[in-house]
């Protein structure tokens, strides 16, 4: 069994004090505790600070285009259902540029864990508002303050039928690690929105700001949708953390006859054997 440290590779390009470090560590610990070997795991990401994660965790990695972390993850589930697929990317990536894939992959429900490093800002491009930026936050582009209300990813997940909806905070490391483990083990699409301080650009939602507000509500029934909705809409003085909803439904892969048996990627093939397919045109 590999230890958490064994999953850590590469020299990070993150700022000292960035919340990404804790998320990376939690992910490494989760993989270690789940006894997943690096070659069994695939991490997909888009572009951004968070999206550099595949370079910093020893595992297979698809570091694709900005906003496009989910589609290759979906494709990889079709081609090789044996891979544990984790999407680890930013809030801009997942909810901004990638918003349409967010909507429709929740509906599809592929078996993967989606970890959003939600620093409520565009980090890599130096501090513009992201879809989750607080209303009123002033940036170099939002000079009059962010006009639109912040997008609520958990509530969106719930109305779109996500079976696993959780909020974490990078500063609550144990909870984060356990939630990531649960998300990876969850059969279906698991949404984990992780509040993450960006020390360089988000001067509103700092570590202290989060720390003061987060709490762990008692979750009586993780299959109580209205309760989950209510919790996911709490934001402000008090911000609840936890797995608000946990209710599996049939996964994308189960609708595909081709996925019975060996993974598609490893099945042998001989074109010559196929000639009967032309009979229908005779």
């Amino acid at each position, binding site marked *: 069994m590999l230890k958490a440290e064994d999953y850590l590779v590469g020299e990070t390009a993150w700022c000292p004090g960035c919340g990404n470090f804790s998320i990376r560590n939690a992910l490494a610990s989760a993989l270690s505790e789940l006894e997943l070997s690096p070659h069994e795991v695939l991490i997909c990401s888009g572009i951004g600070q968070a999206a550099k994660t595949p370079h910093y965790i020893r595992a297979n990695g698809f570091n694709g285009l900005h906003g496009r972390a989910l589609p290759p993850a979906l*494709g990889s589930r079709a081609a090789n259902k044996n891979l544990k697929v984790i999407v680890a990317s930013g809030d801009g990536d997942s909810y901004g540029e990638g918003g349409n894939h967010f909507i429709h992959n929740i509906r599809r429900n592929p078996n993967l864990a989606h970890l959003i490093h939600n620093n409520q800002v565009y980090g890599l491009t130096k501090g513009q508002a992201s879809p989750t930026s607080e209303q009123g936050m002033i940036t170099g582009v939002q000079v009059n303050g962010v006009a639109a209300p912040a997008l609520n990813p958990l509530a969106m997940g719930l109305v779109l039928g996500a079976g696993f909806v959780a909020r974490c905070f990078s500063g609550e490391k144990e909870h984060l690690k356990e939630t990531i483990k649960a998300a990876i083990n969850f059969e279906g699409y698991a949404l984990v929105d992780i509040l993450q301080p960006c020390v360089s650009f988000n001067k509103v939602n700092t570590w202290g700001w989060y720390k003061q507000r987060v709490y762990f509500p008692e979750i009586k029934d993780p299959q109580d949708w209205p309760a989950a909705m209510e919790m996911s809409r709490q934001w402000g003085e008090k911000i609840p953390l936890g797995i608000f909803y946990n209710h599996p439904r049939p996964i994308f892969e189960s609708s595909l006859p081709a996925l019975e048996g060996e993974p598609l990627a490893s099945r042998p093939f001989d074109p010559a054997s196929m000639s009967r397919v032309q009979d229908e045109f005779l």
Partner: protein
Amino acid sequence: MEVNILVGGAAGQGMDTVMNLLGKALTREGYGLIYTKDYMSRVRGGHNFSRLRIAAGKPWSNVETFDILVALNEETYYLHHDNLAPSGRVIYDPRLFDLPDDETRGVSVELENLAEEAGGKVMANTVAVGALLVLIGLPGTAVEELLKETFADKEGVAEENILALKAGMDAASRFCSSCFPLPSKSEGGKKLFIDGNQVLGMAALASGCRFLSAYPMTPSTGVMNYLAGKMKDYPIVVEQAEDEIAAVNMALGASYTGARSLTCTSGGGFSLMVEGLSLAGMTETPLVIILAMRPGPATGLPTRTEQGDLEFAIHGGHGEFPRAVLAATSHEDAFYRLNKAFELADRYQIPVLFLSDQNFADTHRTVEQYDFSRLNYNRCLAEEGQYEEPYKRYRFTESGVSPRALPGQFADQVVLVDSDEHDENGNIIEGAQARRLMVDKRMRKLTALAEEMDEPDLYGDPHPDTLLIGWGSTYGVLREAVDALSASGAKTAMLHFSDIWPLPRKRLNSLLPEVKLSCCVENNVTGQLASIIRRETGHLINRSILKYDGRPLLAHEIIAEVEKNAES
């Protein structure tokens, strides 16, 4: 000797049914034919029509004039009667409209009434088929067979249709029977009756394509429909994406993890895919994209044809990376050509664009059965022991092609691909030297790739005065034009490209300096191939014949243009 038929009516009136029944029956009877569609971007109403040409050997293209007009509504008669041969015939339903008094070619068949008598109005098309059979002197047996196959699960339906068919035959035989004698049958056993999209779908399936993600877009949707239809019985996943961006990125994910992957679209969707194309180039992920062209810009003419996206296919996507561009020229070739596209994608770990267009996609022809043993499935993956440990996805090699492993293929080895510039391992780099090395590595692939390109097909006089140059779906019509021009004594040939990029130049360089007139024939307004030839060889093509009204070129148009030129 040949017979040409045009069936026209409103969208939803079922021209397809008529043509499919008749086309398949004729194919089974051993005739060579081509069936093309002209339809509007709507579901009901408007005016659609289809042409069927039955000719000796195998006809390569359709012609403007015809012998039999099936006018499912009055508009059809008025729109088309000018091109009906003087000796031709019009099948029409006298309950729907009357022909003008001076029209002597009418074959009035109460299509709807007879259908209703046979069991239901919906069979009016079957009645029309019956009438057609009589006019061309084909016995009903083949169609009856087909009806039985089609409606095998639906009790009584085949029988009712056979009644309708016979009613149509009876009705028409009062006017004329076998008045349009069929040409000689084609040789060489049972043929396929198949359209271009089906050819490509089947080629993909038989090439071991395991994953198609696409978003519906005319005229590419037929490929998706074909492959979706195979999901129950074959190891293939077809996923309708939320948009074309998802489509191309899903396909890249599936390809990266090991499935031969495909996406298909038309121009607008391709526009949305070019960022992913660029990603395929950077990550060196094999991918085949079928780009079925239609007239642009923007939504353009969704159900029409054009060859307007060639330069976009070659230059689309930001940054510089190797790619191949191949095209569907004929039903005969495209089947093997698409397999080649998959092979090239895997061998060079590059994206391969496969250009089709509405003209190719929607055209049915009779073709010889395909030889599936000519298809290949070489994934070119690193085998155990064929890579150095630790595995590095982008290891530098002389050819520029790195040993490719799949995620999970080797215990304890991981595969990292990256959209940023990267080192051999796939990790982000920023250094100038590292960048240069990686660009050079990718670009080195072009040397061997260029060698893989087939020279354009040379057909006609080996030392022509006039050289017609084309690419893609104009193959058939150019061939017929060359035949006709040659028959009238002009030393004519054609050079036709199926592999377009990297542009094969040998034949161009040897022929172009020799010919008196070089002429690019293209279904676009700017003459894109001519530009590319000049860019790559310096040769100025003397003349271009360009058609950009959304309709396919016709042989007589090309011939007239060439002859006009010869005169001047």
